[in-house]
């Protein structure tokens, strides 16, 4: 017995020895690479030390315009190019100013602070010279590669949005879903505009999705079709979403008469719980049949909504609506911010993106309102044309704006629930539109 024990102990020791020897051998193989990292040091005078320190300061990196610093791209060496004089100096300063402007808008003006603060701070970090934070090994680059390059984070956000969405108002008055379709004209109308301005079809598609007024969808599409413009597209999309209360009301007023704005809508019928439960499945089934290309977005959305409406996994749906979406928002913001590096954002295209985005947004609002006017003409129940503006999918901001404008025209006229129908239909509509664009460039 004892002999056996000793024997096994010996055997173990032998195995341990040989494996450690093997490890040593292995180390020896990799060693040359490791030692090459270690710089050889030779004695320096104090002035030499000061000079070499100066070489590594940010001040020097910014003002010495031709230091040959490489562009930091999360995709790694494939895309690296030497930064030009402008990109590495004044470009950075301008970008840092833009970042401060975004901070101001988010904090003082309340523009989508939940996203603009992480995006802008990511932009600030991405513009630090020498630190390469947006490079493949930097924090922002790691985040970008982890969840944006593979479109994972936008889908998680969509899941959370699904878990937060109540389809009750849409189910109570399904016809209003068509308004959410009309507002997608913003996407395709501005697609034509963007090509007329000289963008190629793929870039134009990525930009025009801003008109869907849906942050995660915009990021999802931009990443597939035009990853270089991701930063500008995301910033434009979220800025315009924040500007909904400024952009939409003038368009809504211009396209409707006072009488139309004062139309009162009836009380919505109560919705059976089963309807709400089955709805996400129906949407998913339809998109599986018609447009599998859009199922990543709609699938995540339907899952979130189904978890909520099932009523038996409140813990999960609560996590999706709160902790998960919050965590992902931090990552998404920082990752998108990495695309605010001067060499990627300060290009002429960014200006075009901002302009086309604004047109897309306005066109979507207008198309929704016009569609609602037409529906009002032919419908038995009155439809207030204002709710068409909620067809852009900025949930729930545009529905609130509609309700506010409606209440201004006729105190006591509450359109919020009626506007929520087209609003959530807009989310589905822009996901479908995104699927169509993806299917074209397949």
């Amino acid at each position, binding site marked *: 017995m004892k002999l056996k024990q000793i024997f096994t102990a010996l055997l173990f020791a032998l195995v341990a020895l040989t494996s450690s020897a093997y490890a040593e051998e292995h180390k020896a193989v990799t060693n040359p690479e490791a030692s090459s990292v270690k710089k050889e040091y030779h004695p320096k005078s104090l002035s030499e030390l000061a000079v070499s320190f100066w070489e590594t300061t940010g001040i020097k990196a910014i003002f010495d315009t031709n230091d040959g610093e490489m562009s930091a791209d999360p995709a790694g060496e494939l895309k690296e190019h030497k930064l030009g004089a402008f990109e590495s100096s004044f470009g950075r300063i301008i970008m840092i100013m833009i970042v401060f402007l975004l901070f101001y808008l988010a904090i003082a003006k309340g523009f989508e602070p939940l996203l603009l603060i992480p995006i802008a701070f990511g932009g600030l970090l991405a513009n630090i010279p020498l630190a390469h934070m947006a490079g493949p090994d930097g924090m922002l680059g790691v985040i970008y590669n982890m969840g944006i390059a593979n479109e994972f984070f936008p889908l998680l956000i969509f899941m959370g949005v699904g878990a937060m969405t109540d389809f009750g108002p849409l189910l109570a008055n*399904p016809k209003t879903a068509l308004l959410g*379709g009309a507002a997608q004209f913003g996407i395709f109308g501005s*697609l*034509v505009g963007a090509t*007329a301005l000289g963008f190629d079809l793929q870039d134009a598609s990525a930009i025009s999705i801003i008109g869907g007024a849906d942050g995660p969808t915009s990021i999802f599409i931009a990443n597939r079709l035009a990853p270089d413009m991701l930063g500008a597209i995301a910033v434009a999309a979220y800025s315009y979403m924040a500007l909904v209360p400024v952009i939409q009301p003038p368009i809504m007023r211009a396209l409707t008469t006072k009488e139309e704005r004062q139309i009162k809508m009836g009380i919505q019928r109560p919705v059976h719980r089963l309807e709400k439960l089955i709805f996400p499945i129906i949407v998913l089934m339809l998109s599986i049949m*018609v447009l599998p290309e859009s199922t990543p977005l709609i699938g995540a959305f339907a899952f979130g909504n189904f978890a909520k409406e099932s009523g038996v996994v409140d813990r999960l749906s609560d996590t999706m609506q709160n902790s998960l979406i919050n965590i992902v928002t931090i990552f998404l913001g920082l990752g998108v911010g990495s695309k605010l590096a001067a060499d990627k954002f300060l290009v002429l295209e960014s200006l075009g993106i901002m302009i086309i985005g604004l047109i897309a947004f306005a066109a979507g609002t207008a198309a929704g309102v016009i569609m609602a006017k037409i529906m009002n003409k032919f419908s038995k129940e009155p439809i207030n044309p204002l709710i068409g503006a909620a067809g852009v999918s900025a949930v729930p901001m545009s529905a609130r704006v509609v309700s506010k404008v409606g209440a201004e025209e006729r105190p006591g006229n509450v359109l919020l629930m009626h506007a929520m129908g087209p609003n959530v239909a807009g989310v*589905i509509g822009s996901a479908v539109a995104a699927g169509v664009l993806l299917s074209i460039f397949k």
Partner: protein
Amino acid sequence: MADVNDINNVVEALKFMVLGMGVVFLFLFVLVKVVELQAKLIAKYFPKNTPKIPATPAGDSADDEQRRVAAIIAAVAEFRKNKS
């Protein structure tokens, strides 16, 4: 050459628009129809169980008691009046 490309792009974009708006509307139209059908089916096979009216409405028991006492007092008073 560049000009020709631009023109083509715009025409292509117009085609995208027709396709895209068509698909979006078709999708939502079918969705509306299915949802309407669903609402009808559910209303038929799973009728809303109307909230039952409780047999004894809660909350007014104290009120009831007072009324009962008042009725008894009135009856007794009436009885005595008749007796005398």
